[in-house]
């Protein structure tokens, strides 16, 4: 019986239970409130619906808490109970071995039970399913009991003087807070796990070797000098910004100062669409169109230099994938990050400054160059920082078009690799979770996170100060 319970689809049951409880709580509260009304008597402080919501709230919260406890603690509890029952023979196992044994038991149970030839394993799995089933049964019973108690409690409160509306308002506020808290908790959780795994990595590989080492060879041998990755990331982001900064800024100036309202209405969304193109599309565009073109021109330059006698061998590497190809395409991708925000800040420069400059006899371009741009500069810088941070974190384009070899080279036609590319490489394919190889991905992730965070924070602060100045 308990084994069958173990197979119950808990997710559906929990949801169904909660829906039923809420619906019945609502109608119970409302009907009770309305009965008072029909009986005549005093005026109600809150309308019938609010009493309904109030009762539903009380029916909802206790089972929700139980469900939360279940999600968090059911599995560890079941496994804990199981391991305390295990026979003598298991006590010789090391804790790591025991852990992985229990893990496979849980997996087998999740698949619906074990029917293979290992009798011991089958027995253990069966027992686990029993324990698990009892837990589920207990949880469902507890939820039901909680819901009923809650509804009973709340139902007694329904009366003309009861301020159900205020209670419901407070409940709604708490619910909204909870949603915000989930987002924050997720961020904190991710950062904490990044930190934790990185610390484990740095326990094995010295911090300075990682940051300043120049040899990266995580796949085959244990060389974790990440400098070439930082270099590659920096180089490609730089190329991208050489494209995006001028193009983005000049289009922003055109849009905000020269374009008519009509043109602006069409061109700005079009530009912003660049940011909406899936990066994988940019990636294969970079790989199939730009990279071959870069290679061809590099080869052309090489033979030209040789013919001139300026060089007696190839000067440029002319690889099939290259930093230049990835950087150029990434530059196009981040143009809207620069243009859109810059356009906003240029627009936010008050017209009174433009009028002032025109009235002094300044021409349009003098006004833009000497008054508008200096006034908007902080915001423009912020837009550039956001673009850089986007470029540093970009993955797909570089995975496809930048290459895999970690090295430091200023030749833009050579292939480079970046932090993001290596994280992908480290975590795809066969990986054991504990090896320094896998852990190094967390360390790289941490670096990436810290760098982009710093850029974003500076950008936000700058924009904030800029807003304060003109509002």
């Amino acid at each position: 019986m308990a084994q069958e319970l173990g197979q119950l689809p808990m997710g559906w049951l929990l949801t169904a239970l909660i829906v039923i409880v809420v619906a019945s709580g609502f109608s119970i509260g409302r009907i009770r409130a309305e009965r008072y009304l029909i009986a005549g008597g005093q005026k109600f402080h809150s309308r019938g619906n609010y009493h309904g919501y109030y009762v539903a709230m009380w029916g909802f919260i206790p089972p929700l808490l139980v469900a939360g406890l279940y999600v968090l603690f059911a599995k560890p509890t079941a496994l804990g109970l199981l391991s305390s029952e295990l026979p003598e023979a298991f006590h010789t196992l090391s804790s790591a071995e025991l852990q992985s044994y229990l893990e496979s038991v849980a997996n087998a149970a999740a698949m619906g039970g074990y029917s293979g030839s290992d009798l011991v394993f089958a027995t253990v799995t069966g027992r686990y399913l029993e324990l698990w089933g009892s837990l589920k049964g207990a949880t469902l019973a507890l939820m039901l009991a909680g819901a009923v108690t809650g509804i009973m409690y709340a139902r007694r409160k329904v009366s003309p003087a009861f301020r159900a509306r205020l209670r419901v308002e407070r409940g709604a506020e708490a619910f909204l807070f909870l949603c915000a808290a989930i987002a924050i908790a997720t961020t904190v959780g991710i950062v904490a796990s990044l930190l934790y795994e990185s610390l484990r990595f740095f326990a094995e590989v010295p911090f300075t070797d990682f940051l300043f080492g120049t040899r990266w060879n995580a796949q085959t041998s244990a060389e974790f000098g990440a400098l070439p990755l930082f270099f590659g990331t920096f180089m490609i982001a730089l190329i991208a910004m050489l494209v995006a900064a001028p193009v983005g800024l000049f289009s922003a100036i055109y849009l905000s100062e020269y374009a008519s309202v009509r043109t602006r209405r069409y061109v700005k969304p079009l530009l912003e669409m660049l940011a909406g193109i899936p990066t994988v599309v940019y990636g294969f565009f970079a790989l199939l169109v730009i990279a071959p073109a870069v290679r061809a021109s590099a080869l052309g330059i090489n033979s030209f230099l040789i013919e001139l006698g300026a060089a007696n061998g190839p000067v440029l590497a002319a690889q099939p994938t290259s930093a230049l190809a990835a950087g150029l395409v990434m530059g196009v991708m981040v143009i809207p990050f620069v243009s859109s925000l810059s356009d906003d800040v240029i627009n936010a420069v008050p017209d009174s400054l433009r009028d002032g400059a025109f009235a002094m006899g300044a021409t349009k371009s003098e006004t833009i160059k000497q008054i508008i741009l200096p006034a908007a500069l902080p915001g423009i810088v912020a837009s550039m920082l956001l673009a850089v941070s986007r470029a540093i974190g970009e993955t797909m384009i570089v995975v496809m078009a930048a290459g895999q070899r970690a090295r430091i080279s200023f030749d833009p036609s050579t292939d480079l690799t970046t932090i993001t590319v290596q994280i992908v490489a480290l975590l795809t394919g066969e990986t054991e979770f504990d090896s320094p190889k896998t852990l190094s991905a967390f360390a790289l992730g941490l670096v990436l996170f810290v760098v982009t965070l710093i850029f974003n924070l500076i950008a936000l602060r700058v924009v904030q100060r800029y807003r304060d100045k003109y509002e």
Partner: protein
Amino acid sequence: MDTTYDPALAGEGADDGQPLLYPRIDCRDVSVFYSGKQAVFDVSLPVFDRSVTALIGPSGCGKSTFLRCLNRMNDTIDGAKVTGEIFMDGENINSSHIDPVLLRSRVGMVFQKPNPFPKSIYDNIAYGPRIHGLVDDRQELDAIVEKSLRRAGLWEEVKDRLGQPGTSLSGGQQQRLCIARAIAVRPEVILMDEPCSSLDPIATARIEELIDELRKRYCIVIVTHSMQQAARVSQRTAFFHLGHLVEMGDTDQIFTSPRERRTEDYITGRFG
């Protein structure tokens, strides 16, 4: 304050304090349309040199719009169209061969809200002389900055902090900075659009004193919604209503014996 005649800074004419009785600016049948909607109707108005002309009237009657015709600032507004003739030194400034950029260096403007550039006090003043190439070296520029600030009565207050941003000054100081900025390009005419409406009474009094001082050298046109101000600072007054010029004349005459009923009603506060 430096009040001696200085040909490098002054408008034309000697500083004898007497209003000149020939019109510096002569407007004939000026109309303005915003996207086809007429805001100013056939205004003909002479503006005399070395005197202050006040434009008064209820808000929305086209005072600012008319004022902006005098330095072609309406060119910068999408959909605005100006017709009619405005003669300045015998030339119609509305004709197509006039470069508005050059015109604006001869006709300075001060706005309702002080709008110093986000630059230092020094650079605010130096901006105009620099873009118009009025100076050859730093010394000359320093001299212009000092003189303009003196003229605007601001020198004593800011001479030790010329490097600080113009926006760090108080509202009244900022407005005097804007006047100094306009003076620095040696204009002949200065337009002011309600220059005191965002200032407190003390700062207003200072600006009014300043206007009275500047009148000796320049031709000044001021828009104001305060009739007391018009009476205090101007020699000539023009009353606008619904885009029409209703009446104009010597300020004394307008305020004591207006010819038109509407002018009288407005001045005595019966509407507006």
